[in-house]
């Protein structure tokens, strides 16, 4: 199966046997391509992964944070079509991901195939739970801007719920809903934005026809002790939203997203996969055990990002047998890796924040 048909066929259709072979072939080829075209990738593989590869688990993986400290690409400077940056964890250096036209196209195609699975082929009237200012500067997108732009192609008549001062445009929202009565509406936003501006705000609306898609991690939500179930329950109670889909994805593998099913599990599409690894020795772990999430994707051609070790923890729930009938691995994310408390002699007395210049 070539890459286009792998992306364009109905998603979540390949069984374990079919998928492991197809994915392995593609990823092995990508691995070979990056070996030849990215000297940094080659150095890593030669040093750390010299055994012959016989399965997906043998594909070398590089840490996702590598794109923060190094410019990794497998294309010439002339071929760079777009540079994605992600802010990553607050305050840290952003990742820089170099895309050529092909890769960018593949990403868009892949994303739309996944989204079609829950929103259908037609573009829907769309409410974006964010401010238009996040997409205004087209030269450098923040992760939020890139996410909003990426998703906006699945909607029409886009309405940004927040004005540039981050105030909720209640009247605009009412007008929009009145205009698009009795038709499905696409609702998109980052998880914490959705919570803050749809649930915690005073907004009143009937969104029972809406399909909410949200992403961006649960860190801020867990601080408020809001898990996925609570999130869904509260939004249903307050605004009548019935269909809520979270997805797991990252700027380092745009397009390759893991979308939640009706049963609350994240699913691997045909062209991507996850492996859960033991933090102690990176050995692959079976079902039910919490470990580090490694993500694999056939989309990453212009940069060696086809196999990334994330800093997220998760649990593999099963493969091919989810009650939602999607094939492939399904899993949950349990949070960011905890940071160790280090001992050592220094730093008794660093100046308090306020004193730093």
């Amino acid at each position, binding site marked *: 199966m070539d890459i286009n048909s792998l992306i364009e066929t109905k998603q979540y259709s390949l069984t374990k046997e079919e998928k492991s072979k197809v994915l392995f072939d593609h990823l092995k080829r990508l691995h070979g391509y990056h070996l030849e075209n990215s000297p940094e990738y080659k150095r890593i593989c030669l040093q750390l992964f010299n055994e012959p590869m016989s399965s997906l688990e043998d594909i070398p993986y590089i*840490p996702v944070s590598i794109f923060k400290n190094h410019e990794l690409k497998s294309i010439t400077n002339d071929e760079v079509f777009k540079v994605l940056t992600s802010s990553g964890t607050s305050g840290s250096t952003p990742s820089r991901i170099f895309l050529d036209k092909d890769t960018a196209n593949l990403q868009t195609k892949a994303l739309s195939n996944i989204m079609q699975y829950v929103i259908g082929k037609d573009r829907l009237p769309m409410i974006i739970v964010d401010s238009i200012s996040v997409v205004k500067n087209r030269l450098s997108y923040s992760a939020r801007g890139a996410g909003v732009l990426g998703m906006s192609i699945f909607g029409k008549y886009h309405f940004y719920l927040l004005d540039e001062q981050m105030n909720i445009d209640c009247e605009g929202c009412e007008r929009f809903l009145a205009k698009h009565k009795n038709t499905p509406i696409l609702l998109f936003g980052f998880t914490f934005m959705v919570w803050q501006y749809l649930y915690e705000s005073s907004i009143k609306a009937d969104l029972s026809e809406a399909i909410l898609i949200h992403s961006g991690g649960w860190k801020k939500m867990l601080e408020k002790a809001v898990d996925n179930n609570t999130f869904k329950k509260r939004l249903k109670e307050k605004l009548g939203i019935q269909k809520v889909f979270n997805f797991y994805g990252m700027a380092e593998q745009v397009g390759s997203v893991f979308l939640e099913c009706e049963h609350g599990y994240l699913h691997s599409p045909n062209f991507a996969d996850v492996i859960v690894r033991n933090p*102690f020795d990176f050995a692959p772990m079976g079902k039910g055990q919490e470990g580090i999430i490694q993500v694999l994707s056939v989309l990453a051609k212009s940069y060696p990002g086809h196999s990334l070790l994330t800093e997220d923890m998760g649990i593999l729930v099963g493969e091919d047998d989810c009650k939602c009938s999607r094939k492939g691995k399904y899993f949950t994310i349990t949070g960011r890796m905890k940071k160790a408390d280090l001992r050592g002699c220094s730093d008794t*007395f660093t100046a308090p924040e306020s004193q730093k210049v």
Partner: protein
Amino acid sequence: MIIVTQYCPERKTISEAELISDPSGSLAVFDNATISFFNKVSRLLLSDKNYNRAPEVAALGFWLRSANIETMQKENAHWIKAKNYSVNPLGKVFHVAPSNVDTIFLYSLCISLLMGNVNIVRVSSSFNSPVVDFIITCINKALEENEFKVLKQYIRIITYGHDEKINNFISTNVNGRVIWGGDSTVLHFKNIATSVYTKDILFPNRISYSLFKASAYNNATTEAKQVCAHDFFNDGYTFDQMGCSSPRIIFVLGSEDEKEVFVKELYPHLSAVAQKRYYEQARLLSSQKYNHLIDDIILNKVIHAEHSNNATYLIEMKDNIPNVEFCQGGYFYIKHLNEISMLKDMVSEAVQTLTHYGLEEHEVDELNKSLYGKRVDRVVPVGQALAFHYIWDGMNLFEELSRKRVIELGKNI
């Protein structure tokens, strides 16, 4: 008005007047009461089954025994009992303890008290260490005994947040300051104006190395290799490899082949100990260490990386002197050495401790001579990196925490 939290002699809050109050009597240098007091503390530390297995508590307990203190007394008798001068306390000493090396504050306090000083010890307010809490409980318990009550006036262990007013107040009211905690703490306190008479004993950041004679390790019995791995583990992992004395680079003395065998031999033994005793921490640190390895590889610095799990990384580097800033939680650099004399060009001012394994006496001697004029402060066997010595960072702390009064008699008239 300054108020601080006091842990010792009693847990309560105290005011500035109490903080710097003077004792009513005086305490002799190596006073018998002080010696038996620390012996009592030692017994309390070592008799608690919950804590006496922690290596740092056990080490502290043994160090405080009167037998050990008397040995130190003898070793220092030549100058303490000198005829032409008398040894006196500095007076009031302010100790700023490092936030994470749990036991240092007590070594610091002990030496100072043995010299007859009055002590104010600040432990970090971010301290959340059960070990520190336990040590303080033992001290307070010992102080309640009648014969030691007099010492209460000499020991004040306190804590407060980042409060410049209190730092200034104490700094300007003491005769000496012992500042642990590395560069930033040292610089911070150096910038506080004290009396010109105040003596500062400063402990900036240091780093440490290890030197293995490859043939000695390679030819050792399996049991001996395991013992060595244990010792090296204690040195390297106890403070997440970030103690001043924790080894960061392992220099391997021998031929190229011997070095290769050594790395392959050391790895499984060391990582087996680490898997047992450092499992959870290794899991938490895995991505930090792996990321760093990837950085090292991308920058084309790595000759060979030995790491089949995340508890132990042995990374042979091309750089002559690798930057060891990152080395933490079991990330050791390997450097090959053809001969002992090569080491002298690889040790900067920052190097404090060099642990060694498999060296014969004449080789230790050769090493010592080749380091003449270099600022390496300790050359000790593997396993002894963290063993506290009253000569620390090149200073005899008994001497530093006292002063000598020259006494000369006049002619008989």
